[in-house]
């Protein structure tokens, strides 16, 4: 008796959905067991997560608030992943965007809200774009591993932000807290419906539509998909891989940078220590779980955001570290990765002729 795996030609959509949901729930079972071993009652923990993120209108709005940057950044990174370029530095690119926006507010304040916000958006997009573009350039020019460069640029961006808020940009009236002065009114994104949900929501919706159109309908989107499928075929067809990678990295960084600007201008209205809650990393999961579809990422980001909101609630109510939410993120990725095997291969128990010596051998990818 042994397991046999056979490659599937194409898995139907419903199977994708079912398998993904099944394995995500496995992840929560595993996560619950893990919490249990750590002396945390899993059911009450899950209840806290659910209640805190969906319990009331206000909670729901908070979940949306946190889903906004997640979805935006995930759209940014999925652009790169379509090309098989591993930009895992969206975190740093968002920080740079926020810094650039703050710099504009500080040095070129404008009375008009439209002028101020547009200026901030452009500055943030360029800053994030350049930050990511560096890694893209190094990758295509000298084949420098972009996973490492984007990640190192994350750490550098964090230190850079610290430098400014502890140093030259620190608000003298903040009683020593590391934060900048509050932004002027024209530099704030208006909020909606009396909640903390800000105008970034519309930007996100527009972005998702635009990205869907770019990927499906335009020459550029087509090029990106060909380059991601087979870069050698792309060069063979006369596509410029160099410009493709740098361009995609720039755009990706620009979106991430813009996200950073939305966060400071929409929520805090200033930059303070620990301003970003690791959205950059969570967005990677969102991108992966939504199968690199911008539209789908809106939905996935919302669910993932409930985990972040829940994580914060767990910190308050059960005294768990904020980073605990990362356990679930890691587990979900593990299980969904494992689940993909069952989408690509059909596995069956084989009671065929080869009995005897290999009775207890598991079919391990042909290697035995």
């Amino acid at each position, binding site marked *: 008796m042994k397991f046999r795996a056979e490659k599937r030609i194409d898995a139907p959509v419903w199977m994708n959905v079912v398998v993904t949901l099944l394995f995500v729930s496995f992840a929560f079972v595993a996560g619950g067991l893990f919490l249990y071993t750590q002396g945390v009652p899993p059911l009450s923990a899950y209840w806290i997560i659910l209640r805190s993120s969906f319990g009331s209108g206000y909670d729901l709005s908070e979940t949306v608030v946190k889903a906004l940057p997640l979805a935006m950044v995930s759209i940014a990174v999925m652009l790169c992943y379509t090309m098989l370029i591993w930009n895992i530095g969206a975190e740093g690119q968002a920080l740079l965007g926020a810094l650039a926006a703050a710099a504009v507010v500080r040095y070129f304040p404008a009375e008009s809200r439209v002028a101020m916000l547009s200026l901030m958006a452009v500055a943030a997009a360029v800053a994030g774009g350049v930050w990511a573009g560096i890694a893209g350039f190094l990758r295509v020019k000298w084949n420098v591993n972009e996973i490492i460069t984007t990640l190192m640029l994350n750490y550098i961006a964090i230190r850079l932000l610290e430098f400014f808020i502890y140093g030259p940009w620190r608000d003298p009236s903040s009683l020593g807290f590391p934060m900048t002065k509050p932004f002027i009114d024209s530099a704030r994104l208006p909020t909606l419906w009396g909640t903390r949900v800000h105008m970034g929501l519309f930007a996100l919706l527009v972005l998702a539509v635009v990205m869907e159109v770019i990927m499906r309908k*335009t020459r550029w989107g087509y090029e990106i998909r060909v380059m991601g499928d087979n870069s*050698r075929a792309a060069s063979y067809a006369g596509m*410029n891989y160099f410009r493709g990678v740098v361009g995609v990295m720039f755009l990706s960084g620009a979106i991430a940078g813009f996200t950073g600007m939305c966060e400071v201008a929409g929520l805090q209205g200033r930059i303070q220590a620990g301003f970003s809650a690791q959205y950059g990393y969570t967005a990677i999961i969102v991108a992966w779980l939504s199968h690199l579809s911008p539209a789908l990422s809106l939905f996935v980001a919302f669910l993932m955001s409930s985990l972040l909101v829940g994580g914060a609630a767990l910190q308050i109510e059960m005294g768990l570290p904020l980073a605990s939410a990362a356990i679930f993120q890691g587990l979900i990725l593990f299980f969904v990765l494992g689940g993909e095997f069952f989408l690509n291969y059909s596995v069956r128990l084989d009671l065929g002729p080869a009995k005897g010596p290999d009775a207890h051998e598991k079919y391990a990818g042909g290697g035995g």
Partner: protein
Amino acid sequence: MTEGRGAVPLVEMRGITKRFSGVTANRDVNFSVEAGEVHALLGENGAGKSTLMNILYGLYRPDEGRIFLDGKPVIFRTPRDAIAAGIGMVHQHFMLVHTHTVWENMILGVKDTPFVLPKKKIINRIAEISGHYGLQIDPSAMVWQLSTGEQQRVALLQMLYRNVRVLILDEPTAVLTPQESVRLFETIRRMSGEGHGVVFISHKMREVMSETHKVTALRRGENAGTVATSETTEEALAEMMMGRKVTLDVNRSRLNAGKTLFEVRNIRVLGDRGVEAVSEVSFSIKQNEILGLAGVAGNGQQELCEALVGLRPLLSGEIKMNGCRMEGSSPRRFIREGIYYIPSDRKGVGMASGMDIVSNSIIKKYWSKPVGHGAFIDWRNSAACAKRIIEDFDVSAPSLHTPVRNLSGGNLQKLLMGRELSEAPKVLIVMHPTWGLDVSATRYVREQLLAARENGSATLLISEDLDELLALSDRLAVMFKGKFMGLLDDPASVPTEKIGLLMAGAPVEAA
């Protein structure tokens, strides 16, 4: 040549069936090899020869059927079991680790090797075996530094080192010059003389008739018969293998070549490892002309092709299209000038194989009307264009949106040829166009190349198959270690041996 063979076969396969994701590669096949026998396994591409032998070698497990060794049933779960039982195989793509030395490859997977590798002892043993069989090799060389012929020697030695009794050779002469093939057959005769059984996979009738004792033909995964070589003829074998009479003869009409279209002068190109892969190559091609390029793979053909379509920079030299200098231009400019390229690596270079037929059909024209539409792509026109290729070039596919990777080798090549030829190329560069295709697809591809010639294309045809080159080319060049060894104006009149000598690097005068 038939003396000294025993009655009980060395190895026997009975009722072998093997399926891959629903495709039956072998159905109820019986096959056996006796001691001292050279047994040809004949069949078209895709007939299941390699699959059957990979089962005997323990790489694949049969879904049904059994294997007997000296009359006793055995189960091979891995190649390790097969090797231990005395069965060895030299694959078409040699199973060598390129970054290892020759001697390291020799002992790879050998069970009783001590923890610390006894380098001296191994090298002595290699010298002993290679002396005995006339297979000279430098044991300390890295495999990637060796020529294809030398690598085959390493692969053979690898098996002899393991004292195998049955040796399977998968199309061993496909990568050799005619002279190298002669030497290989000497080694094979020596082995069978010593009582080894040899399975010789091939589709070259001539070799099968002169070098083997017995022939088994496979057809669509089934055994189409086993006969003694001395009691059959080439024609009978061909019919056995194909089930019908198919010839590969194509009609090459007499055409007067037009004006010179494509000129290359003294180009030098670097290979991936930083050594010069193409040195001082010059030639020109006229309209309505096919220039054949013979040579063993790995002598710079790949790099030459890439340089000719702008994918690889030149160190020096000129490329002229219609008198205009092209070197240094982007690959897209080459395409716009009408220079089209059919690469040998269809899935790795020619296609984005995860994408569908429509997306792959427009890969060289998505920027211009009617497919490109400003910044957008008109998918309706794209689908129409894909449909035209599929109909004109006889591609069979479930739908226009099938990922290209799911197409069979023949259909993939037809799609690729169709995409390039439907653009009415002025210059066509084609590499190994019929590699791995079955007879009918091969014939189709060759006819299409001749049709392009009649329509005015200037074609550079690179192939390892001399018969193909002689059947299609107006002129023939031979490449060895990055250099052109000679340009033959009337290739059909030149004896094959002479071309073989050129392929092995002999200077023109000697040849």
